[in-house]
């Protein structure tokens, strides 16, 4: 029973502390929120002038570049890159490295597929 009583004491202590701590934390957060609000109000007047400018710019960009054209350009760039890349990095993996590079599985699966394909014929 002494243990239970001690448990009760700790419960009272614990509940008090956890509520106290989270209440204080909540107050601190309200404080942070309040000061943030004041700071933002102070900063706003300056920003009003800047923001529209930014927005206009964005709109312009979007207008300037026709989506269709962008699509073609992007694809072209990608095609160019995909043509370039393999040449730049002529990977010559050694078999043993495959194992390390976890390539084993991929490789195995490749062959597995290949075998199955052959199996079908």
């Amino acid at each position: 029973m002494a243990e239970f009583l001690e448990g009760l004491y700790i419960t009272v202590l614990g509940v008090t502390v956890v509520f106290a701590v989270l209440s204080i934390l909540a107050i601190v957060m309200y404080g942070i929120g309040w000061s943030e609000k004041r700071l933002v109000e102070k900063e706003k007047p300056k920003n009003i002038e800047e923001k529209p400018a930014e927005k206009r710019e964005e709109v312009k960009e979007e207008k300037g570049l026709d989506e269709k054209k962008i699509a073609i350009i992007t694809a072209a760039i990608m095609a160019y890159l995909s043509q370039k890349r393999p040449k730049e990095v002529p990977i010559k993996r050694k078999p043993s490295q495959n194992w390390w590079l976890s390539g084993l599985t991929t490789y195995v699966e490749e062959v597995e597929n290949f075998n199955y394909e052959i199996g079908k014929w």
Partner: protein
Amino acid sequence: MGLEQALADFFNHMGLLHLTVGNIVMIIVGLTLVYLAIRYKMEPLLLLPIGISAVLVNLPFSHLANWPLAPQLPPDIQGNIFETVKYMNQHYGPPGIFDLIYYLLIKTEVVPLLIFFGLGAMTDFGPMIADPKTALLGAAAQIGVFVAMLAAILLGFDLKEAASIGIIGGADGPTTIYLTTKLAPHILSATAVAAYSYMSLVPLIQPPVIKALTTPEERRIRMEQLRPVSKREKILFPIASMIVIGLLVPSAAPLIGMLMIGNLFRESGVVQRLSKAAQEELMNIVTIFLGLGVGSTMRAESFLTAKTLMILGLGIVAFASATAGGVLFGKLMMKLSGGKINPMIGAAGVSAVPMSARVVQKLASEEDPGNFILMHAMGPNVAGVIGTAVVAGVFLSALG
């Protein structure tokens, strides 16, 4: 040594011949956890390593874990981790890999604290900052911890065990492991397994409790849109809460401190490299060690006891009463706010992030498909992580 001798020796050390009933039961328990993890995706990142590691350590002579978990140490070396490992090596042979993980990484708090660090880097405290009063619901849910603790004392557990069992109701795995390791390491596997299992069962445990305590009208209450939270606030929050809690409950400082450092890394925006490492590289590695280390404590002698069954039972009590505590305080706040707060969000004070918040959302949608309170439930949800760490701090300062 003749061939016969060699063969005899080999067979004498064949695990098969030394398998006890306890081992077999533990292997089945381990396999069950693996099955639940894979088949039902029950917290697989923890329960899969825990389960498979439990299987391995229960194969006799497997030498992955050679040291006992709660050894009788000479009084002068208790509390000295470096003397302890030396003593263990002397008396129980060289450490297996799981002994090293358990004694050097988990018992020293390193792994649970690094997990908290990673969780901090993964958590967005925004919803709580946007509506600070919801933090109180994270406190209310801790009532479940104390209810379970008192119940455990009544069932005959001593104070330290009872506290470790109660903390299961906090629904925070790392906190549970951290506290149990310090107060009652012999029941670590039971409390850890209970914590992670019930966390993944939150969608089953919570709804009946919530429904029993709320009316459909209450569940239908819509809440005001949360205000946006600025980057500056998100940066100030971890710093402020680390200092506030550190000054009030110093024994919670390691958990809260690491959580908030992680969160500051995340929100500061200037150390993405480190924030990513905390969430990924480091987190993954540490999670592997946590799972394997905790699983390696599932030995027949310490797990297969009536205590473990009681702990599993008390775990449910803890989760249910934590949910009830949250919801009832939610009803109080609803009354005080003039019906602006949906009392269900209190249930999310049980911090199985973000699952309990989702449960709450689901129940809200059931009553009114247009009712979105998930974000409001995230406030108590993350507050519950802090609340449980604070309670752990109180336990450590009173009992540690």
